[in-house]
């Protein structure tokens, strides 16, 4: 079994989308503009190198390769047409960490008031919450690892926090199965 690792992932393009996302028109427009299906409440749709996360009833976050980010806000704006909306490249605003290996659930459970039991938090689940005293969002990828994003201004703190929390964990508490 591989070891528990905490690492900063390579820069990723991020586009914040604000619109009335509940309407069928907006969902079809987002699918056409991003190639991603709008996920349900507190979910993230992982599709290859892209992902679309539910942030709030009127807010979504699109993750994509950095080289593709320039053209996407314009495409979203065109697809949403006259509906009130906002689509902005915010790639530099946040940093993403990856927590993988046995005990990854335990690392997050030390600082986030979230039920991280295997039956309660599954791949594709997305949660905005706090880690220690700062706002973060994390989700579970298809391979069972966690990705966590926070504002760049607190990335140093979050990195230290995660590395410290990962120094000693008991993965047995959240053993799968």
């Amino acid at each position: 079994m591989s070891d528990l690792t905490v690492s900063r992932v390579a820069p990723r393009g991020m586009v914040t989308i604000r619109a009335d996302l509940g309407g069928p028109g907006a969902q079809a427009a987002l699918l056409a503009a991003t190639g991603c299906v709008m996920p349900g409440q507190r979910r993230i749709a992982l599709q290859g190198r892209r992902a679309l996360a539910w942030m709030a009833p009127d807010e979504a976050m699109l993750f994509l390769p950095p080289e593709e980010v320039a053209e996407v806000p314009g495409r979203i704006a065109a697809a949403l047409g006259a509906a009130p909306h906002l689509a902005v490249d915010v790639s530099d605003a946040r940093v993403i960490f990856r927590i993988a290996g046995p005990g990854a659930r335990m690392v997050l459970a030390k600082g986030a008031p979230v039920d991280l039991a295997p039956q309660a938090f599954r791949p594709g689940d997305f949660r905005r919450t706090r880690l220690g005293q700062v706002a973060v969002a994390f989700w579970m990828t298809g391979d069972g690892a966690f990705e966590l994003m926070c504002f760049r201004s607190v990335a140093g703190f979050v990195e230290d926090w995660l590395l410290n929390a990962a120094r000693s964990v008991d993965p047995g508490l959240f053993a799968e199965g």
Partner: protein
Amino acid sequence: MLLLTCPYCGVEAEETEFAPGGQAHTRRESAGADDADFAAYLFERKNPRGVHFERWRHAYGCGKWFHVARDTATLEIFGAYSAQTAAPPEALIAKIRRRRPGWEGWS
């Protein structure tokens, strides 16, 4: 510790994920109000031992404001509802009356 359910995220989360916003359903005295009424709007708040209606914000989550009805003595949560309203939902009032038969009402 309160366990609040955000009506926008549909998730039950602990109090530390939220920011309190004080008493709900205060009515702002607008231009032309006399000083006493405006002072009452600014400073006078209920402080009940029992059923209370409060504003809360899911500060670490979706960021939305909403209203919560709870009991300040037992920490029982009766329900949460949209802040885009001037009065609590009828179903919630009925639920509180069932749980607290002697309750004097919300206004």
